[in-house]
């Protein structure tokens, strides 16, 4: 979520039992808890999601002075991923794009360049955006597909500049927005699920001379997916077990790669070239001779 202001709690039940939180500089950015049987996820300065145990009924209460773009991003992104976890579905914290019905998914830690890398692909011919922040993985037991989830890239100023995107004249919600990620409409948004061709774990390595791709296997591949899973029911053993089954099913059907590259945005184009080659290679490989 980047740099958000200090948490401003809504009129919350004092009975909420918080199970985990993400903090920065002593301030809570995000936390998950339970209020009786109901699940609660609070996004600092944006809003709070309340959901029934099965995720079928929910409500999102936006914080009064929240940036409406941020509210929309959380509602259609991370909140959706959290609800899907309660519904028994797999969602990765990842950006994704499709071309010719095949999807490339970019996963990685916050700040690993997921949005920027996918925006680079989406600036090229034939690619369309599936997701900026949450990759919805469906049809896992047959051929895993990525279902379209989000309609905007969220990019920092230096990424926008590298991609030649100007936001001059766009409304600025707050002073903080000028140095935060801004929503950018891609040239094309995917309108249907795309078969998942490859999942790339993004890693920065300033010792690398340029971008490189490496196929991952075994528990190394598994760990890259498991750290990217979006989870809500944190204390539900059955949910953990189901998620592992889903991740293994994906690993058995979709190759996982590591895309290692230096921080320098000038290397973005080369990284995009590698992903385009990968997309072509895995599509050819999947189709067979």
């Amino acid at each position, binding site marked *: 979520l980047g740099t958000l202001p200090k948490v401003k709690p809504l009129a919350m039940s004092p009975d909420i039992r918080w199970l985990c939180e993400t903090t920065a500089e002593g301030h809570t950015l995000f936390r998950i808890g339970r209020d009786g049987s109901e699940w609660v996820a609070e996004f600092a300065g944006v809003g709070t999601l309340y959901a029934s145990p099965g995720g079928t009924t929910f409500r999102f209460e936006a914080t009064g002075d929240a940036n409406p773009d941020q509210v929309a991003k959380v509602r259609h992104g991370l909140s959706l991923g959290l609800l899907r976890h309660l519904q028994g579905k797999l969602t990765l914290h990842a950006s994704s794009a499709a071309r010719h019905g095949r999807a490339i998914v970019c996963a990685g830690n916050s700040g690993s360049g997921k949005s920027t890398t996918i925006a680079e692909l989406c600036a090229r011919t034939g690619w369309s955006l599936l997701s900026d922040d949450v990759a919805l993985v469906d049809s896992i037991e047959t051929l895993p597909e990525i279902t379209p989830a989000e309609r905007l890239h969220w990019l920092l100023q230096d990424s926008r500049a590298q991609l030649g995107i100007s936001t001059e004249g766009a409304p600025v919600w707050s002073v903080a927005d000028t140095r935060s990620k801004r929503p950018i409409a891609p040239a094309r948004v995917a309108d249907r699920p795309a078969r998942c061709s490859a999942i790339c774990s993004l890693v920065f390595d300033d010792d690398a001379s340029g971008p490189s791709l490496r196929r991952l*296997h*075994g*528990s*190394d*591949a*598994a*760990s890259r997916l*498991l750290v990217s899973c979006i989870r809500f029911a*944190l*204390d539900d*053993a059955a949910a*953990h*077990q189901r998620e*592992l*089954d889903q*991740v*293994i099913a994906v*690993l*058995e059907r979709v190759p996982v790669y590591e895309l290692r590259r230096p921080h320098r945005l000038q290397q973005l184009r080369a990284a995009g070239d590698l992903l385009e080659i990968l997309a072509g290679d895995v599509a050819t490989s999947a189709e067979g001779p």
Partner: protein
Amino acid sequence: MTASAATRVQIGPSVYARAFDEGLVVLDLKRGEYFGLDGVGRRMWELLVDAKAVGQVADLLVEEYEVERDALLADVIALTDELLERGLLVLWTQTQ
């Protein structure tokens, strides 16, 4: 504790393991923590949870890998100790 050649173990009561491809993921359901084992580590796990004694596991692995039995036994004991310490394996009991 320190395992010996005679030690027999079984998978912990709150542990779920899934093998795939070349790897194995072991999930501690109580803590929500994952552990990975690849290659010979995965093979050791498979033999250990098949109720074979640590020494038997080393005997079987000698036939599969070009390693001296003493070295293999030391490795199996070290892995068994670590898995027991983490609660992913427990000492074998007839009732379980």
